[in-house]
């Protein structure tokens, strides 16, 4: 139960010193400063001396590594329905996570009280994981690294006047209601946050970062007689309010939600069983997240728990598939300037032309498997210790024209929008739920279909990818990945893909 991995849309959550130095260098190579350098002083009132003292307590029982993760998160939201702002909300979560590592063993404690007394207690609690009087790890001198800023912000949502956010909500509400007389309810939410982070570890690595992220969403109900359907769409990323002018107007998000709810009024049942499925671009990246990404997180693999364990170098997908995890795309939801334990984000090729190339690592798994860390050590907040997580996961584009892909299907399903997915890491069996899909008949989209679940086995389905489009696009909106009780924002992208056969969970049986 604890081990279920899922993804959903918000609103519906070392090999020794050498490798450690390698990532330190890549962090230091950055140019522009990601955040004001005084986050430590402004939000936490601690300096290098205090951090060194705390880290020394952490190592006092013989651990070989320790880190301090300071977080001050400001979050704001507006909830709008029935032409009214029903609730405005704002709050602050602040605390420090203290982690002590001995080999692959972790001691962890956190405190919301930032006094040296409370932090020292937390450090002593976490240090209890080690009991090795002979070990002599030392805290290195702490130097503040400069990070390259991958989320330049024009207009930080969390600090903006609420009336400006209300402007986007009003625009979306008006657009959705004007879309069709069948639209009977419109709900809009603006959820934004900014995290001021400060970090220091016993290797002497220290940085500060400001991580903003927002999700703007519209949900519509369309009615016709007793038939009632919902449509949902969201947009955002690690970007400011300039998103609406530069990337996508609020009206566009609203129109999409309205269109989906009205379209679903015509949706029909589909029979259960295996079918050819064409996955549309953008949101079908859920397939990669579930069928590939989770199974390649190295914590599962170093413990030999994943169906991909020990399969590096083997074929796990058709030769059309190259799958990458990359936390480096500017302003994208899964992007990070630095991972939550000081690792530089990278572009990690997971599958290249169908062959498994490697895993997603955090510090502990990289050390245990004696490879370089990939900068995927992420945590939900100060209250959790990091583990290997995806950032932005995507498939490189292929050569096929998306039209040609559709035309090649006599009868099948075109899947466009998804509610989420989940995977059994060990077996590799995944499911994902499709919110918008159409029947393909003789190469053309015909009837819209009621929500269905698609199920399959990771390598099996990836091997059945028979065409890959040239139209790679990234999903917008609030994809959130959950693992072992921790939620982190992620991004995903995929070109149009044809899978020769996936089992479709319809509610009819073929006559």
């Amino acid at each position, binding site marked *: 139960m604890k081990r279920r991995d899922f993804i959903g849309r918000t609103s519906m959550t070392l090999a020794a010193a050498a490798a450690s130095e390698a990532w330190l260098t890549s962090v230091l190579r950055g140019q522009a400063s990601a955040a004001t350098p005084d986050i430590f002083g402004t939000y936490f009132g601690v300096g290098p001396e205090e951090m060194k003292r705390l880290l020394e307590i952490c190592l006092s029982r013989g651990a070989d590594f320790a880190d301090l993760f300071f977080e001050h998160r400001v979050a704001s939201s507006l909830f709008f329905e029935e032409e009214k*702002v029903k609730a405005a*909300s704002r709050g602050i979560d602040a605390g420090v996570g203290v982690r002590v590592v001995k080999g692959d063993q972790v001691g962890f404690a956190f405190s919301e009280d930032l006094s040296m007394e409370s932090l020292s207690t937390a450090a002593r609690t976490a240090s209890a994981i080690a009991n090795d009087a002979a070990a002599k790890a030392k805290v290195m001198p702490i130097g503040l690294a400069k990070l390259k800023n991958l989320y330049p912000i024009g207009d930080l949502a969390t600090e903006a006047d*609420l009336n400006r956010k209300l402007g986007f909500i009003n625009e979306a509400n008006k657009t959705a209601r004007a879309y069709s007389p069948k639209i009977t309810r419109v709900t809009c939410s603006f959820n934004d946050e900014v995290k001021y982070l400060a970090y220091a570890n016993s290797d002497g690595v220290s940085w500060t970062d400001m991580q903003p992220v927002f999700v703007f969403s519209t949900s519509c109900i369309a009615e016709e007689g007793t038939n*009632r359907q919902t449509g949902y769409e969201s947009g955002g990323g690690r970007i400011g309010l300039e998103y609406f002018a530069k990337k996508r107007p609020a009206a566009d998000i609203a129109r999409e939600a309205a269109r989906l709810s009205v379209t679903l009024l015509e949706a029909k049942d589909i029979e*259960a069983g295996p079918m050819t499925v064409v996955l549309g671009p953008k949101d079908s990246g859920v397939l990669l997240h579930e069928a590939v990404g989770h199974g390649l997180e190295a914590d599962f693999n170093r413990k030999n728990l994943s169906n991909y364990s020990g399969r590096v170098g083997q074929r796990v997908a058709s030769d059309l598939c190259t799958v990458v995890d990359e936390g480096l795309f500017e302003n994208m939801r899964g992007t990070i300037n630095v991972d939550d334990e000081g690792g530089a984000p990278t572009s990690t090729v997971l599958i290249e032309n169908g062959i498994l190339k490697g895993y997603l690592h955090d510090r502990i798994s990289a050390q245990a498997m004696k490879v370089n860390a990939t900068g995927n050590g992420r945590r939900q907040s100060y209250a959790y210790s990091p583990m290997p997580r995806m950032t932005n996961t995507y498939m490189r584009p292929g050569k096929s024209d998306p039209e040609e892909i559709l035309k090649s299907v006599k009868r099948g399903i075109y899947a466009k929008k998804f509610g989420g997915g989940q995977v059994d890491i060990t077996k590799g069996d995944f499911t994902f739920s499709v919110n918008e899909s159409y029947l393909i008949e003789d190469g053309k989209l015909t009837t819209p279909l009621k929500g269905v*679940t698609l*199920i399959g086995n990771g390598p099996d389905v990836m091997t059945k990818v028979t065409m890959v489009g040239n139209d790679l696009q990234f999903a917008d909106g609030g994809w959130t990945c959950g693992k072992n009780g921790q939620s982190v924002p992620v991004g995903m992208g995929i070109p149009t893909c044809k899978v020769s056969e996936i089992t*479709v969970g319809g*509610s009819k049986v073929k006559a």
Partner: protein
Amino acid sequence: MNDYRQLATDVVAELKRQGADACDVFVANTTDFSTEVRLGRIEKLEQSISKGLGMRVFKGGAMALTYTTDFADKSVKSIAAQALDIVKVSNPDEFNGLAPRESLGVYDGKLMLFDESIASIPTDRKIDMAREAEEIGMKSDKRITNSNTAGWSDGTYQVTLATSDGFVGQYRTTNAGLYVGLIAEEGGVKQTDSWYSFQRYANKLLTPKEVGLEAARRVTSKLGARKVKSQTVPLVVDPTMAQRMIGAFFGAASGRSVYRKSSFLVGKLGEAIASPLVSIVDDATLADGPGCRPFDAEGVKSSRVPFIEKGVLKSYLCDSYSSRRLKMPLTGTTNRGYQGGPNIGASNLFLMAGDRDPKDIIKSVKSGLYLRTMSAQGFNPVTGDFSHGATGHWIENGEFAYPVQEITIAGNVITAFKNITAVGNDLKFRAGGVASPTLLISEITVGGA
């Protein structure tokens, strides 16, 4: 120990002083301990003390919420001032407000909330229990080849609520849990499964041996799983999955979902929405239920709420807002975290036990599916339609013939619940306050090869 009653009432006074028409203040503070072991080795030890304070402010009919984890006087006053600032962009809503005074109160009957004995369990003993569950599970069958972690966790959770109508209430609960995940392998195919026990009182937990053996039984029973053809068959629902299905009814009965028309139960009050064998209750006063509580997140005195009786939908589950709005009774069935306002949340939610032995239910099925797991997504709360990935056992002539995987089940929950033809006598709270006995649904669409 900090006096959070005083803090909460002080903040209520501060909000009134700053101009709130009405307000409530909710404080949650927790202590948590957890450990994970794998293959006999400790992998993780975690310990924390945590707290948060949230306030809900009404002014001129509009509502705003703010929260903080910093309880310093300056921070709390600042967040109170922010509440009165941001409430200005909120719009008046005639149904906003606190719960009516006459509904407020603290249930004074006996409730098993806090187990003093948990604090005295030594850390070594907790680690040993996790180790024991893992070891017994792994040794019980040679096809079990790996462990996916065993763990122990325990904690305390204290709620303090004060409102501008003078309600002040506080209670604290304990929790403790033990779990183990195992991997079994046969013919090069791996399967994983787990078992667990979470309770408020440590003496109600399954023993490490029971947890380990059940995890082992479950994971080995999956070995050799195959697909089946798409077909319509009877479905026997394992209690762990039946409990998820009744959760869907609870959510759909929420007054908020109803006025938003985002529920398949809109317009169904007084109608048969399930078989006469089905009665579902949310009972916050069930003394030994793991979800019991003396009052809800609005300070409403706890009571027993039988919302589905003999298949008929008797009431929606209303917080004070939806109660005023729908003109229906307030049910006192809300939960809350410090970051948000009251929301519909189960206390002890259960489908009342029937009289059938679960073994007899399985025996009564000539050919059908026993549902063991289903995927989280795939339920549409507006229509009640569902389509889930599933695993389980194929039943032939009343017996488990072989395990099945990579299949789907799909249909509509009302149709499925109307088709319930047997309810088991095996009602038991295993992990938290939601429980159901084994159910038999006469037909369901299975999707497969």
